[in-house]
C-alpha cells in the first residue's frame, strides 16, 4: 500500500465518522471567531436552544471592522454605528457563552490568522476552522485548516464537527533556492499565476520543496494564506524544526512532558516518501522574480520586469474578454511596463503580510528614504497588538514614521476596507494583501498585490520598482 500524504494523515486523525455517501464528520480542535461571520451563527444557536459543544475550543477577536487609529477609545472609537454594533455583538455573544475573546483594547487583539499562531492556539496537527477563507494560513503548521461559511460556524459551535468530503491531494513543489529579495509572497503569486485561481479547486495543497523548507514560519503562512486564491480551501506545509521552534514557549503551547510527547507526534506530520498525489506541480524557485499583479484576479500577475498583457494576443475568447475588462477597470494599457504604473497609495498589512518579519522587510527598504511626494498615503498596519509592540521595541515604527509612512493600530484595515481605511475611485494601490478584486479596497479602487519589500520600494519611488535595486 502506498504511503500517506500529510493531508491523509490529518484527515484520518480527525475522522469521527465516515458516512456511506462519501461525506464524513471531522472533529475540530480549534475554532477562531470574528465579528463579521459569527453573529448569525450565535443567533442560530440561540433560536434552536443549543449550547456550544466545547467552549474552550473557541477563541474570538474583532478584526475586520476595527479602526486603526485611536485604539485607546475602544469600541467608542468606531464611528460607523453598524460596524460598532457588529463588534458589540461579538463581545456580547462571547460573554454570554463564556468564550475567550481578545477584545478591542486587549494587546493580544489582532487579525485572527495572526493571533492564532502568535498565541500558540494554532498547534501542529490541529484541525482548525474559522468563518474566513484565509484560514488556510494555519496550514503552515501542518494543520488541517478550513475556511467555512456561517452555517458551518454554527455547526462547529454546536457539534465540534464539520461535515466534509475528502479532497484530492496536490503537491506544489518549489525547487531550488529563492533569490535575495524574493519572498513567500512572490512564490505564492507565481504559483497562482501558473495554476490559476481555480487550479486548486477540490484539492488540499501541500507546499514542499527546498524553497519552502528554507522559508520562515511567516513566509510559509503567507503562502498557505493565499491557497484560497488558487482555489484550494486547504494549504499545508510539513512540520520541521522551523515549525517546532516557532511554537515553543507560546501561551497555548504544551509544556514539560506533554511538550515532548507532542513533539514526537508532530514529527510524524509530513507526507511519506512513497505517498501518491493526484496532481503535482513543480516550479523553479531560483527563477521567481518579485511579482506584481496587474489585473482584477490574483492570477493576473507577472514579474516586476514584465508588462501588462495585450488581449489581442490571447486566443481564448473568455480569457481575452477578462483581460479587456480588467485593463479597463485598472486603467492600464496593453504592453505597458509594470514599472511605469504610477501609484496613489501603499498599504502594508493584512493576514497575508503583517507579521514581524514582513514589517522588518519593509522597514529595511524605507530606512533612510522618504515616501515619494507623488503618493497620497502610505500606511503600515501591524497584524496584532503584539506584533505592533515587538516592532516598536525594534524601532521599526520610527523608521516608518521618519520615512513618512503612517503607523497604525492592528486590524484588517484596507485589505477589505470595511473600516474607514479605503481607496478612492480610480486610485492605484500597492498592497501586501491577497485580493485585487474590483472594489475590494474601496469603490473603484485599483489594487496591485505585492510583497512587503516591493510595497516599501513603491512607497519611496511612487511607482513599481524591483526591490532588489534598493537593497544594499
Amino acid at each position: 500500500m502506498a504511503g500517506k500524504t500529510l493531508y491523509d494523515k490529518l484527515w484520518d486523525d480527525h475522522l469521527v465518522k465516515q458516512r456511506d455517501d462519501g461525506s464524513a464528520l471531522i472533529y475540530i480542535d480549534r475554532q477562531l471567531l470574528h465579528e463579521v461571520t459569527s453573529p448569525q451563527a450565535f443567533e442560530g444557536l440561540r433560536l434552536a436552544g443549543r449550547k456550544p459543544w466545547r467552549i474552550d475550543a473557541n477563541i474570538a477577536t474583532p478584526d475586520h471592522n476595527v479602526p486603526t487609529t485611536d485604539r485607546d477609545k475602544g469600541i467608542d472609537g468606531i464611528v460607523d454605528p453598524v460596524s460598532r454594533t457588529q463588534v458589540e455583538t461579538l463581545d456580547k455573544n462571547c460573554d454570554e457563552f463564556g468564550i475567550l475573546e481578545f477584545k478591542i483594547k486587549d494587546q493580544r487583539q489582532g487579525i485572527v490568522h495572526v493571533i492564532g499562531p502568535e498565541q500558540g492556539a494554532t498547534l501542529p496537527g490541529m484541525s482548525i476552522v474559522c468563518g474566513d477563507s484565509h484560514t488556510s494560513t494555519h496550514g503552515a503548521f501542518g494543520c488541517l485548516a478550513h475556511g467555512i461559511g456561517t452555517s458551518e460556524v454554527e455547526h462547529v459551535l454546536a457539534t465540534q464537527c464539520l461535515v466534509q468530503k475528502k479532497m484530492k491531494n496536490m503537491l506544489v513543489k518549489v525547487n531550488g533556492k529563492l533569490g535575495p529579495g524574493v519572498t513567500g509572497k512572490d512564490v505564492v503569486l507565481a504559483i497562482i499565476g501558473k495554476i490559476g485561481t481555480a487550479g486548486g479547486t477540490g484539492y488540499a495543497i501541500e507546499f514542499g520543496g527546498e524553497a519552502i523548507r528554507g522559508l520562515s514560519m511567516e513566509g510559509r503562512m503567507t503562502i498557505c494564506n493565499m491557497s484560497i486564491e488558487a482555489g484550494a480551501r486547504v494549504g499545508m506545509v510539513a512540520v520541521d524544526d522551523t515549525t517546532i521552534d516557532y511554537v515553543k514557549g507560546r501561551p497555548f503551547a504544551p509544556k514539560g512532558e506533554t511538550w515532548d510527547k507532542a513533539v514526537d507526534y508532530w514529527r510524524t506530520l509530513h507526507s511519506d516518501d512513497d505517498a501518491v498525489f493526484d496532481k503535482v506541480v513543480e516550479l523553479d524557485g531560483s527563477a521567481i522574480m518579485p511579482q506584481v499583479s496587474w489585473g482584477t484576479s490574483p492570477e493576473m500577475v507577472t514579474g516586476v520586469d514584465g508588462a501588462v498583457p495585450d488581449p489581442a494576443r490571447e486566443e481564448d475568447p473568455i480569457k481575452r474578454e477578462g483581460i479587456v475588462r480588467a485593463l479597463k477597470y485598472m486603467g492600464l494599457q496593453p504592453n505597458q511596463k509594470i514599472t511605469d504604473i504610477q501609484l496613489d497609495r501603499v498599504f502594508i498589512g493584512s493576514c497575508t503580510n503583517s507579521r514581524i518579519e514582513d514589517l522588518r522587510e519593509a522597514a529595511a527598504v524605507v530606512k533612510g528614504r522618504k515616501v515619494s511626494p507623488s503618493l497620497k498615503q502610505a500606511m503600515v498596519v501591524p497584524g496584532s497588538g503584539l506584533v505592533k509592540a515587538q516592532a516598536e521595541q525594534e524601532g521599526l515604527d520610527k523608521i516608518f514614521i521618519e520615512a513618512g509612512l503612517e503607523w497604525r493600530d492592528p486590524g484588517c484595515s484596507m485589505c477589505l476596507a470595511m473600516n474607514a481605511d479605503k481607496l478612492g475611485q480610480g486610485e492605484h494601490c500597492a498592497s501586501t494583501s491577497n485580493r485585487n478584486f474590483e472594489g475590494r479596497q474601496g469603490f473603484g479602487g485599483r489594487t496591485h498585490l505585492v510583497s512587503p519589500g516591493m510595497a516599501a520600494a513603491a512607497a519611496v519611488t511612487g511607482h513599481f520598482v524591483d526591490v532588489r535595486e534598493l537593497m544594499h
Partner: protein
Amino acid sequence: MRAFTQHQGIVAPMDRSNVDTDMIIPKQFLKSIKRTGFGPNLFDELRYLDEGKPDQDCSERPLNPDFVLNQDRYKGASVLLARSNFGCGSSREHAPWALDDFGFRVIIAPSFADIFYNNCFKNGLLPIVLPEEVVDQLFREAEKNEGYQLTVDLQAKTVTTPSGESFSFDVDDFRRHCLLNGLDDIGVTLEDADLIRDYEEKRRQTAPWLFNAGN
C-alpha cells in the same frame, strides 16, 4: 431549512467568469447581523451606477442599464446561469443569502468555488454543475428567447429546457437528501453525539495538549 424538490423559473444569463463573492455582495453590507435583507444589494457595484451604502433605500438609485438583472426581459428570474469558478474568494455566506433574498433558487455554472458551493446547500439554494458545452448552449438559448425558463428536478437530478431537452447533473447524496427534505445539518450530526464524545475522550488521552485552555 427550506426544502428544494422541483423548480421552474426564468433564466438570467451572467456572462462573466470568476465572479467573486465581493462582487456578489460588497463588504459594506456585511456589517448586518441578520441573515436577510441582502437582496437589494446583490451585485451592488454592477447593478447600480453609484456607490452603495448600508441601510439605504435602493429604489431611488441610478441603475446600470447594461447589467443583466436590470433588463426587463429577465425580471423575476430565479435561475442564474453563470460561467466558471462562480463564487470564488471570500467565504462570506452573505453571498448565498443575497442571491436567495433576491429570489434565486438555482445557479448553473461549469464550475463553482468550493466554499460558495457548500454554502448554497445550507441555504436551500441549488448550485448545479453542467459541462461547459451545455452551459454555452443554455446561454445561447436564454439570450435568444425572451422569457426562457428551465425546469430543475432535484429528485431526478435533471435540468430540462422548454423544448424538452434534458441534462442530468451530479450532486452528492448527503447534500441532496438534506435539501430534498429540508433537513437541518446540525440535527443530523447530533444523532452521532455519542461517537463525537467517544472520539473526544480518546483524543483527550492521546493528545492532551489539544485541550489546553492556555494561560
